């Protein structure tokens, strides 16, 4: 029988290897202190947790009026509790493995029904955008939620710059496919590369955000660096990470979770407390960072963004188009 030992760690007795193995537990105490004390050791070992890679401050961003008033989830939880199967299926895997991802240089291929197809350097794309901070609630299909202060720019602006043709009805996004940088892709859990898509009017909604950072810093790799989508009224899996390709299409693209389990994960995936997942209820959500005895939060229709997005689905049967 395997007996697990408690991992009681104090900050001054860690060794570089232990840092790596226990990065989740360590980061959750007092990350900044810890990093300050041991970063040189970790850098020397080459085994530093990927949180160290972030930390570059983003200058020049405005505060968006789309932000919600809720208190953001602590940084250590936002960066250590991630669904990013490209780095492993456990919540802590991305924080441990994402340092393998090289985000500089990064280019994005733009193709399909656009007037300006091509391969664009991310730096060049960013030069043309106005960055803003938006505090959004992220609701996962697994019935938990967190509040994240994203930094990014409007997806609508980016699409306009691509000059969509009249045939462009959908926007398809693709994540990087490179098992050397994304070791989770060595296993066939999902079909790689990860693909997500929005209807054109959803993509053009002002809430749809292309995020490049969070908490005033460049995006940590485990959160989808260097460029990810954030669609706050949909379940988290729609908000695709580490985007390398954007394609505008006439027909509805095939999307990853929908392909692997279409009965459970619809194309729309709008947050909806009245439509349960086939295996669990969606009416309430565990709040990440809340106390152990706190009651679950009631899930809001469209994750609370109904005022801005309900019109997109007027007349649609949301039980059928879940």
């Amino acid at each position, binding site marked *: 029988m395997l007996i697990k030992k408690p991992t009681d760690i104090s900050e001054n007795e860690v060794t570089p290897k232990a840092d790596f193995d226990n990065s989740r537990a360590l980061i959750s105490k007092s990350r900044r202190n810890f990093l300050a004390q041991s970063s040189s050791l970790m850098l020397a070992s080459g085994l530093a947790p990927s949180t160290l890679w972030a930390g570059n401050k983003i200058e020049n961003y405005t505060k968006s009026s789309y932000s919600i008033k809720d208190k953001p989830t602590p940084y*250590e939880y936002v960066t250590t509790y991630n669904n990013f199967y490209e780095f492993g299926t456990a*919540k802590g895997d991305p924080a441990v493995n994402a340092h393998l991802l090289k985000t500089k240089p990064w280019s994005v291929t733009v193709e399909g029904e656009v007037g300006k197809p091509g391969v664009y350097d991310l730096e060049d794309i960013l030069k043309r955008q106005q960055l803003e901070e938006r505090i959004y609630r992220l609701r996962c299909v697994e019935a938990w939620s967190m509040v994240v202060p994203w930094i990014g720019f409007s997806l609508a602006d980016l699409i306009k710059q691509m000059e969509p043709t009249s045939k462009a009805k959908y926007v398809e996004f693709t994540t990087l496919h490179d098992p050397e940088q994304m070791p989770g892709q060595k296993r066939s859990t999902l079909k790689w590369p990860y693909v997500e898509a929005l209807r054109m009017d959803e993509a053009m909604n002002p809430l749809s955000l292309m995020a490049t950072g969070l908490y005033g810093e460049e995006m940590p790799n485990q959160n989808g660096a260097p460029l990810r989508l954030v669609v706050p009224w949909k379940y988290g899996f729609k908000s695709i990470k580490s985007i390398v390709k954007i394609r505008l299409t006439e027909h509805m693209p095939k999307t990853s979770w929908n392909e692997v389990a279409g009965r459970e994960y619809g194309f729309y995936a709008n947050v909806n407390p009245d439509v349960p997942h086939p295996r669990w*209820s969606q009416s309430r959500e565990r709040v990440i960072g809340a106390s152990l005895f706190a009651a679950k939060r009631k899930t809001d229709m469209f994750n609370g963004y109904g005022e801005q997005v309900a019109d997109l689905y007027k007349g649609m049967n949301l039980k059928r188009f879940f």
Partner: protein
Amino acid sequence: MAKRISKRQLTALKAIVFIASLLPFSCIIWDAFNELLGADPIQTLHFRTGDWALRFLLTTLAMSPLQRVFNSPLPIRFRRMLGLFTFFYTSLHFAVWLVLDQSLSLDNMLEDVPESPYIILGLLAYSMLCALAVTSTAGIMQRMGKSWFTLHKLVYLIAIMGVVHFFWLTKLDYAEPTVYAMLLAVLLAFRWRIIKVIFMPKEKVS
């Protein structure tokens, strides 16, 4: 393995197994009080108590095959204790759900349970396990006679339900429940004759 051990040795061994069986519980409590349960503590508690419930269940089921393999009566002496620890960790698992996940609210349960097949299955398996736990004393065993053994054959069904429960709550990555399923399959293979009798009662197996 020694065929005979003294009563004192057996008591000492039982004490060691008892304390060892409480170690996972101590770790969970330690982590809970030191805020080491991570970003989603309720989920962490669910998984850790559930994992240990399954591990103890499989360990319990391993005792009679061990007896056969080593031709020693010793493993069977620990079976009841391990079975009760299975019940202990399953009860913790249930308590986490009832108190932390559902906040003891009947409304919440009426909403969640019908929409979650894995919870229905878990509750069914737990109620059967309760029946085995309350009939586990020597006195009741004696009074029930032959029917005790029939009742306690339910443990095979409970184990299957426990593993299916794990499969049903899993999102896409079935590696872990598959390991439990394979271990259970091996343990059930040792009971092939009994299982045959249960499912094909007409066919007398000698």
